[in-house]
């Protein structure tokens, strides 16, 4: 039985795992659940949520970041010391737990006035976080960790390349350390091949 990764037909919170698996050249079933099928599928999932990972042994797991970290560990992309692991986790947690919900709320808001208010509220927070990460936490010249590429780089790339544009934000060009990481990930053959072949979605 191959590994199966089920998520909606979106990048959303699933794409980080897909980037890691693309980088690793891993064989897996990339299952996309259509929104109209979701209500009947939901009760069958471990936590009534997506994504769901099914391992070769048949065990099922939920929680997008936990799943991404599993693959980061599996493919030695999690960091080489406990402190590096902490740094990677910090970056990932900031983007996925703190920033993403703010951006998602903007994306889903239909009222233009409210959308603008939410955006004006979120933008300085997100920009401030990005600046602090740029100035204090990018330890390599092209990678977050001093030891080289890690899932933190993919999380950053996912945030800048996929999440910010969904709400019309972009990375401040002055944040050159972050930009160097983003450019480096984009240039990885497996990643550019994946981006080329994937079904692109607005979010």
């Amino acid at each position, binding site marked *: 039985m191959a590994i199966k990764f089920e998520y909606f037909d979106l990048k959303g919170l699933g794409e980080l795992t897909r980037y890691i698996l693309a980088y690793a050249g891993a064989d897996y079933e990339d299952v996309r659940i259509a929104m109209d099928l979701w209500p009947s599928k939901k009760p069958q999932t*471990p*936590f*009534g949520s997506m994504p769901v*990972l099914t*391992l070769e042994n048949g*065990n099922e*797991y*939920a*929680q997008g*970041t*936990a*799943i991404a*970290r*599993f693959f980061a*560990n*599996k493919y030695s992309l999690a960091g080489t010391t*406990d*402190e590096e*692991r*902490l*740094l990677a*986790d*910090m970056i*990932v*947690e*900031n983007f996925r*737990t*703190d920033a993403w919900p703010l951006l998602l709320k903007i994306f889903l808001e239909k009222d233009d006035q409210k959308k603008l208010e939410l955006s004006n509220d979120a933008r300085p927070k997100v920009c*401030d*976080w990005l600046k*602090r*990460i740029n100035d*204090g*936490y990018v330890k390599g010249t092209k990678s977050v960790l001093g030891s080289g590429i890690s899932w933190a780089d993919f999380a950053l790339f996912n945030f800048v390349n996929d999440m910010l544009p969904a709400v019309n934000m972009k990375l401040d060009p002055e944040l050159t350390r972050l930009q160097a990481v983003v450019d480096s990930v984009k240039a990885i053959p497996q990643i550019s091949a994946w981006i080329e072949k994937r079904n692109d979605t607005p979010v």
Partner: protein
Amino acid sequence: MPLKLEYFNLRGAAELSRLILAYADEKYEDCRISFEEWPSKKANTPLGTLPVLTLENGEKLPQSTAISRYLANKFGLAGKSNEEKLLCDMFVETIKVDMWKMVAGVAFEKDPSVKAEKLAEARPKVNDWMQRLEKYVQGSDTVLKSGFSWADIAVFNVVNDLLPVANIQLDPKLTKLHAVVKRGKAQPKIAAWLAKRPVTDL
């Protein structure tokens, strides 16, 4: 320089780390920032947030769950295999991200009628998550088959320290989770910490 953990004078998002440090019997500076001093301290924190962990080498790192995981790894509480680590992370993410958001929303709500509405929404949702977590408890009183881990401490923390604030109880039918909580409470170092820690509302 020992470890320093800075947070508000609350249990909140830092208590999981404090419980792990207590279990490991590790000396650290338990630094509590008052709400009055926070505005002046905020700019000097890595991301303008608390908690912040300062390592022995002086490096400062925020993000509460990342900090807890670092401590769990440091003290051998994170699981013995990659799959066990995933199971712990699944428990912690459900507890610290999903459950936390719902329950904190109730706890922090000042308007009594809105609070009652939020509670009515939160209670079945929390119960549902707990039922699902119950199915994933692999030991007789530990989440992992291999023994005690930070997932057990996270379960203890949410049931003992967070749910009561929102007046939510763990369903008595969830006997495995109750066993996990009971074991957590009985750990001598954890019990000692519970007896001596500052008493706060949240």
